């Protein structure tokens, strides 16, 4: 009895949130999975149970596999690029430079802007007008005499065209990665570095033997966060070029299947696969984070 009196009020206080999240997260996820097992085509129509048919259709759907390939390319370029870029920026700032706040703020500010605005600007920066109409980044290359590396960016037919979209995505998020790395590097106690220096290590050795091993959690966090953003990203791609099949990813495909084609069941199947893709690494990540927290 004493127990319930002790924790009961606290439980009541969180109960409304738990109910809301229970419905909006777990209820809807379940509902969505259920929809993916039906042949629901038009809004409001009742629908029959068809088992895994939607999924087997996807398995034979070339558009789906093309979009998956796009997603993999996008994820690879975006995640690796942002990680390297962010790490490099953190390394530059790590020792403490004059005006650090200014640099940090500039590198991080894209995080405050919507992907829609980012897409609208970058659409023009990636514009591939040619000759006198050359614009955007190509034009910048031209200014500094590097016309030869001009590119058709996302408008080429190559399967790698979607990698160009990773550029604005990386522009928006590598500052975030930098902030994570910087926090990780600064979290290494000064005494550890000093001990290593007194033991005769030069700065690169200090970094390699003392700082680097402590950065693994940061790298894990950054990887997980970037990867899950990459899977979810819809607005950036949609707003850069909504009709381009060259940069379409499953998140965009889901949108078109659901809200343009009204093929709800297939949209739900795609969304379920996205969810699985995210859960595969988010669940271990949460589990691991809370486990280390408890150990502290």
């Amino acid at each position: 009895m004493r127990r319930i009196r002790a924790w009961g009020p606290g439980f009541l206080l969180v109960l409304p949130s738990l109910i809301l999240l229970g419905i909006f997260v777990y209820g809807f996820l379940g509902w969505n999975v259920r929809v993916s097992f039906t042949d629901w085509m038009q809004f409001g129509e009742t629908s029959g149970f068809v088992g895994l048919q939607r999924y087997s259709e996807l398995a034979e759907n070339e558009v789906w596999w093309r979009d998956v390939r796009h997603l993999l390319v996008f994820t690879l370029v975006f995640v690796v690029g942002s990680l390297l870029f962010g790490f490099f920026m953190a390394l530059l700032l790590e020792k403490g430079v004059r005006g650090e706040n200014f640099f940090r703020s500039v590198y991080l500010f894209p995080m405050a802007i919507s992907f829609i605005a980012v897409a609208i600007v970058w659409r023009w920066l990636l514009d591939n007008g040619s000759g006198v109409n050359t614009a955007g980044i190509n034009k910048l290359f031209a200014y500094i005499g590097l016309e030869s590396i001009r590119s058709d960016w996302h408008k080429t037919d190559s399967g790698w065209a979607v990698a160009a979209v990773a550029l604005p995505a990386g522009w928006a998020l590598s500052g975030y990665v930098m902030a994570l790395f910087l926090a990780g590097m600064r979290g290494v106690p000064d005494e550890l570095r000093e001990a290593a220096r007194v033991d005769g290590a030069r700065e690169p050795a200090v970094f390699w033997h003392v700082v680097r091993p402590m950065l693994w959690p940061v790298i894990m966090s950054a990887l997980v966060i970037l990867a899950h953003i990459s899977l979810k990203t819809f607005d950036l791609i949609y707003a850069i070029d909504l009709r381009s099949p060259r940069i379409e990813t499953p998140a965009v495909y889901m949108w078109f299947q659901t809200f343009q084609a009204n093929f709800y069941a297939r949209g739900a199947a795609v969304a379920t696969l996205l969810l699985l893709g995210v859960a595969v690494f988010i669940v271990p990540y949460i589990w691991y984070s809370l486990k280390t927290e408890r150990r502290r």
Partner: protein
Amino acid sequence: MTMTSDAVGIRLDRVTKRFRGGVTAVREVSLDVQPGEFLVLVGPSGCGKSTILRMIAGLEEVTEGRIYVGEKDVTNQLPQQRDVAMVFQSYALYPRMSVRRNLGFGLRMRRVPRAERERRVAEVAQSLGLEHLLDRRPAALSGGQRQRVAMGRAIVREPKAFLMDEPLSNLDAKLRVSMRAQLSTLHQRLGTTTVYVTHDQVEAMTLGQRVAVLRDGVLQQCDTPQEVFRRPVNLFVAAFIGSPSMNFVAAEVTGGQAKFAGFTIPLPGEPADGQVVLGVRPTAFSLATDANRDLPTMTIQPRLVEELGDERYVIFDLDAPRVDTEATRAAVEAQTAEDALLLPENKAQFTARLPADAPVTIGEPLTLAIDPHRVHLFDPQTGLAR
């Protein structure tokens, strides 16, 4: 303020605490704190003393047994329902409240009318010399001032009991000594039943009217400081109480004499024959030249002399193995820095306290007298006093 006459006792009836995961922090502890008494719970860290205090406060659930405050069984009451006040090690002052509001918080929560509240806060602030600090935030106070605010917050509530969890351990050594004296004075004035937790046996001995020594969640001995010091019930209490620690050596008792490391000491009373652990406090030694001729003597070779100004500790080795029971080790580790590593060849090491002018030269033989009435004998198997 509270007068001695309203003081109530606190009774623990075979209280056990098991934490989730199966660790038993407190085992069947029974304690009877008299109304108005100052009782100190002492023991090495992890002995369960803080858990007992927290169970009395209601912050920790009791697994088995009952707790009574006065006549009332409070075992199942929430902390806010028990009329006790607690002083925490970190003081736990509310950071966004002024000293005045910190002091008055408990009264406010108990719906004491504003005028009454202000009067009591002012009174306590005055008695603790906090009047000029009333509008400050805790962050703007020194350690000693914070400590006084924490005490004041407990006093102002005029609770049935004070519970104090190492309240002096965050102060520097000098301040700690002066606060210790103030605490005693305060208790004499208020007469409120107090349970005080510390790991510092000096604090325990100086503050407590009675001292309860705990080890691994088990109550070892609860008695006045003198009794605990003079008649420790077992090896653990003997080794834990007293500084420097009691000296131990394995000895054999035959015909009323203790034999160890080539020495023979006649014992008073009529001790039974057998193997014992012999314990002798550093203060039981004196220079043979200064002492009563009838006292038995030991001639030893000083290995080290520690100067303390008005006295010196002479450390010497005995030609006998070190007594290394689990009980003595636990107690000694809790008291002093681990020095066992530096001991030569695992020999028993003794410390004798001598006057500062005692003529001691390292390596030169020295004859010490030993008071046989102050020799303790313990059973080597059970560790209990014989």
